[in-house]
């Protein structure tokens, strides 16, 4: 539950931040910064998944020591 909540948060927070950011900036130069925003979201999403995998490995390392 906590994990899925965090996942949703990771994806939504940048969108909310951008909604607050200056509309003029994201629309400037042919809206190129909205593409940058999409790329940032994509990167963060993959990072979040890798971070969860990392936690899985950590859990196994801890179990191994016990």
């Amino acid at each position, binding site marked *: 539950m906590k994990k899925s909540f965090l*996942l949703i948060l990771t*994806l939504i927070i940048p*969108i909310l931040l*951008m909604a607050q950011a200056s509309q003029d900036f*994201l*629309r400037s*130069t*042919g*809206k*190129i910064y*909205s*593409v940058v*925003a*999409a*790329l940032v*979201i*994509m990167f963060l*999403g*993959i990072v979040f*998944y*890798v971070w969860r*995998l990392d936690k*899985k*490995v950590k859990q*196994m390392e801890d*179990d*191994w020591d016990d």
Partner: protein
Amino acid sequence: MSWWKLLGVLLLTYVIIAGFTVPLKPGIALVSPQSTASNSTLKLSIEGYNTHFESGKQSLEAWLRLDSIHGVQASTITVKNENLIEATFAVGSIENEFADATLYVNNNIDKTAFLPSAIRITKNGDESNFSKQLIPFDRLSSKPGFLFPYREILNETIRNTFFHVALWMAMFALLIVGLYNGFQYLRTKDIIYDSRASSFNMIAIVYGLLGLATGSIWARYTWGTWWTTDIKLNMAAISMLIYVAYAILRASVDDIDKRARLSALYSLFAFAAMIPLLFVFPRMANVISLHPGNGGNPALGGEDMDNTLRMVFYPAVIGLFLFGRWIATIRTRIETLFYKKSQLE
């Protein structure tokens, strides 16, 4: 390090660099006014994008196309700067009640920049002193070179094709690998296939959720809203919910063999449900969608994808697939270790 991991990373690096640095073709961003009456003189202010109106002043010409072959040439053009001109047209009579005229601006540097349906001309009288000319189509041509096409409204966001669209294609490829391994599990009951199947399905689900998120941003800056009732959005959301249920199902069963069997069977159902949701319903007759390529014609053919876009789009799909495969193999190895450990206990 396997060659395909490096290939995936290199392809994605190429996609990010080429996807952001290749310029767009010259285009027309805005005209004003956007409507006029026939048999009148029209003073049109034309705003270009990536254009060279000032530098190409000597060869500058502007045309308004009134029917399939006829049009009217601008009698005078005042150049304000590289991206702004004012053109005067003597618009003659038109045959129908109204005509949506396409605007062409041509010069030696940019070649032809055009705006479809730039101006709506409403009929105002039948007789005309103004003459129509044949549009010189042999002189009009697209600027050559490695440039992405310019589309009004889309502008630079056409580059999202390499991220948003490629994510969905890579997701689908990863789901097929996951499905194959699910089949293999049901056939052989070898737990390694369950590890592989779930790993490929999980990274595909991540790609799908990111496809929804990136699409939402794209929609905000082109369609003007985060979410619409567009059939592709809602059907994609439903198929993602079906797959999120797959992840929840796996998390809620502790017994390894039971979880493997249940999730393999469920993934067959989820994949079978996704085919009509993503590929059949949006293509049915009478379905209106804002997405390109619906109502029968595929998006990858026709005028929505041109060859320069393809030169970055296909590497993006392959790169994202290989990168997803890399992450999936890491998770497979972790799962295998978990399984081996549980066997030891």
